[in-house]
């Protein structure tokens, strides 16, 4: 005989203001099978939970209904309380009378009537709930970090330093990401290379880190603790073992006029190249799209000059299958294609550059050796105009979000320019100065007060060339007047956007992303580094625009989540999985077709002599995720879903 306890929560006034909780309680008291119904202001509070525990013990309850907020909110809380009182947690259900009742209906009587029906339905369901035991699955203590920028490197090092095994996958030929491209970093003006390259070396040499560069993730299957990942090792055409990184091939390659990606098109590179001089690993790859040999079958200069016979034109893409326990996604960002802003003349005038190009010009390792020079004629500009929000905060043409880092790097650019060219003038067109961060506002003030950056509040409407100058027309909204600045160089603070293949990659990983392609966290405030898919974590600008300190902090947070996972030998999983009745299964394999996870296997039933009698479906509890699609597919009603059985759902419908 069922003994159900119904606990009606007022949630302060959130529920009680609309739903007549006393009436709901009374209705439940008289419902068959209910042995106790009580109401309380906050059942989620400590005394509230205690009263539930007390009732379970004193009344010997066989099921608990808490009529309160959404189960997405406090199901775990109340199930834990039940378990503490000795009741199997899966005998507890939550009736959602807040989000789906008191908050959405204006009429008190209607809301009360609905609350009664919702609660009754769940009472009927819980009567048919079964005791379930969590499933234990082993954890593969190896993490995969995708992306070798600062976030990926930080996460990999943190995990590796704590003793975890890490596979670090980078799609380019070298670690480093965008941070390696930067000149100096705000707000301290540290040289980016100086703080970044030692980290790159540390990651590459760490005994616990296996570094795979020039590699991409092809496929991700499995689940938390037990992912199966296929990595595509793109053909480098250079044998990594044999190559010593001497660089002779790079020197001698006759194909030298390829626009260099690392220098954002400001310098050329040969067909066999390392992305930059401090690359890790410092071994070249051959760009087969531009290599003369790949194009017309002749050349092989690199083969001739290589002393160690490391060049191999027959190399093919290879695939590597890895067993992984947890994944950190740190795939970073791209900058928006600014040519969509015709009025700024990007692409039309060579001296209109992006912020990232300016970084390369200001960088000691850049194409000009750190001299800020115009791409068109190599002269030092006397006036530089910076245009902020060139794409950000512009829902009509660009993106509606704030790219977060541009106010700071523009101030930094103005500063670097002032330090390198003492007689120059800089003008910054801005919408607002957003300098929230430790030492950030002081930094922008310094740019204005000490380094003479002239800030003009307003947007730029047009840019054209006149007498060798770039004429920038905008408006100074503080003066309420149009302004025209003749400039020698214009720098656009372009928007940060997700990687172009981010949406597709989200599907490969089985995680969510927003309308732009930034990956979704499980909870914006309380679970900012986890994704909705257990075992996959986020770090850096792939989740939202971030500066270096934020990326590093998030990477360390993701690493700590991975380490918490690795601290356990076995993982507990929700036992909401399909179960098959082998006695009635006809072996039609409809469930096999339906299952999104290949969790249903064909099992042989044999007699004692080992002769095959028949074959039936068998659910692999490690793979089953509990969607229940197979249940609906089953022709013989043999498969059912624990926690959501046919009986339970029919009862819930009948209870309405």
């Amino acid at each position, binding site marked *: 005989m069922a003994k159900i306890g119904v606990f009606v929560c007022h949630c302060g006034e959130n529920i009680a203001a609309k739903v007549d909780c006393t009436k709901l309680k009374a209705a439940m008291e008289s419902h068959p099978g209910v042995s106790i119904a009580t109401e309380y202001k906050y059942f989620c509070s400590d005394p509230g939970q205690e009263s539930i525990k007390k009732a379970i013990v004193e009344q010997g309850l066989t099921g608990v209904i808490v009529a309160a907020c*959404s*189960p*997405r909110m406090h199901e775990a809380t109340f199930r834990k309380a039940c378990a503490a009182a000795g009741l199997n947690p899966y005998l507890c259900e939550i009736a*959602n009378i*807040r*989000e*789906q*009742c008191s*908050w*959405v*209906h*204006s*009429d008190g009587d*209607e*809301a009360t*009537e*609905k609350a009664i*029906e*919702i609660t009754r*339905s769940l009472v*009927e369901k819980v009567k048919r709930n079964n005791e379930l035991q969590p499933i234990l699955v082993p954890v593969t203590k190896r993490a995969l970090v995708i992306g070798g920028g600062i976030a990926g490197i930080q996460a990999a090092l943190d995990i590796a330093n704590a003793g975890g095994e890490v596979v670090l996958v980078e799609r380019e030929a070298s670690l480093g990401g965008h941070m390696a491209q930067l000149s100096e970093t705000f707000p301290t003006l540290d040289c980016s290379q100086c703080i970044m390259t030692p980290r790159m070396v540390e990651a590459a040499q760490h005994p616990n880190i296996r570094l795979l560069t020039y590699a991409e993730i092809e496929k991700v299957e499995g689940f938390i603790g037990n992912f199966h990942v296929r990595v595509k090792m793109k053909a480098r055409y250079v044998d990594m073992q044999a190559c010593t990184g001497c660089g002779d091939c790079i020197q001698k390659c006759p194909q030298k006029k390829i626009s260099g990606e690392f220098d954002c098109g400001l310098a050329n590179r040969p067909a066999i190249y390392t992305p930059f001089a401090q690359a890790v690993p410092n071994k070249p790859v051959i760009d087969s799209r531009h290599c003369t040999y790949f194009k017309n079958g002749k050349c092989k200069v690199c083969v001739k000059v290589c002393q160690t016979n490391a060049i191999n034109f027959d190399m093919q893409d290879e695939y590597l299958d890895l067993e992984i326990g947890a994944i950190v996604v740190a795939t970073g960002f791209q900058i928006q294609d600014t040519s969509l802003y015709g009025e700024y003349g990007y692409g039309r005038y060579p001296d209109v550059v992006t912020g990232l190009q300016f970084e390369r010009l200001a960088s000691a390792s850049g194409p000009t050796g750190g001299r800020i020079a115009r791409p068109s004629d190599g002269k030092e500009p006397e006036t530089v105009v910076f245009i902020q929000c060139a794409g950000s905060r512009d829902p009509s043409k660009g993106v509606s979000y704030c790219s977060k880092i541009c106010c700071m790097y523009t101030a930094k650019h103005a500063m670097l320019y002032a330090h390198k060219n003492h007689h120059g003038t800089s003008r910054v067109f801005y919408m607002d100065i957003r300098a929230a961060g430790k030492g950030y506002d002081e930094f922008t003030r310094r740019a204005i007060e000490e380094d003479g950056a002239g800030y003009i509040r307003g947007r730029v409407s047009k840019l054209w060339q006149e007498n060798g100058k770039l004429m920038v027309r905008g408006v100074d909204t503080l003066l309420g007047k149009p302004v025209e600045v003749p400039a020698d160089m214009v720098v656009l603070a372009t928007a940060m956007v997700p990687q172009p293949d981010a949406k597709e990659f989200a*599907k490969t990983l*089985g995680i*969510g992303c927003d309308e732009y392609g930034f990956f979704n966290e499980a909870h914006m405030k309380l679970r900012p580094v986890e994704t*909705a898919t257990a075992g996959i974590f986020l770090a850096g600008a792939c989740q939202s625009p971030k500066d270096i300190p934020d990326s590093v902090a998030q990477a360390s947070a993701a690493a700590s989540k991975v380490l918490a996972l690795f601290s356990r030998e076995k993982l507990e999983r929700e036992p*909401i999985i399909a179960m098959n009745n082998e006695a009635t299964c006809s072996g039609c394999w409809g469930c096999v077709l*339906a299952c*999104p*996870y290949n969790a249903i296997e064909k099992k042989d039933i044999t007699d004692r002599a080992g002769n095959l009698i028949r074959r039936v479906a068998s659910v692999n509890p490690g793979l089953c*995720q*509990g*969607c*229940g*699609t197979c*249940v*609906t*597919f089953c022709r013989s009603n043999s498969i059912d*879903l624990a926690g*959501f059985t*046919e009986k339970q*759902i*029919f*009862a*819930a*419908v*009948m*209870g*309405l």
Partner: protein
Amino acid sequence: MSEVFEPKIVAFVCTYCTYAGADLAGTSRLKYPSNVRIVRLPCTGRISPMFILKALQKGADGVLVSGCHPGDCHFDHGNYHARRRWTVFNSLLQFAGVPEERVKFSWISAAEGIKFAELIREITEDIRKIGPFEEYHKLIAETGSAAPL
């Protein structure tokens, strides 16, 4: 003026998208008619046509099935199975003479609280217009197949 008919509508929704969307409607304090009762399931793939029939048999005047948008299923493709199943089942309902408005299928994501509230307003209004599902209730009474609890 005659009293407004208040239909009873049962909604079978998946927990990851539409249930979360309904929660969002709640946290956003959007108002919608109180006629809908939600039955939460892990995925629309779990929703059997039998559930829909059972709800109608119990006295529902309308049924809503709603889950994640195509391509967004938490379980990869459970909602595609649901969609195919619904297409076939719907044509059977049409054949049996069940008005289209009675059984609705929709996609509502966890971010679409507004859409959820609008949909509930819409289907409630639609079913109000066509009135109680008397044909079916009469049939059940005649055949004595009223569902026991």
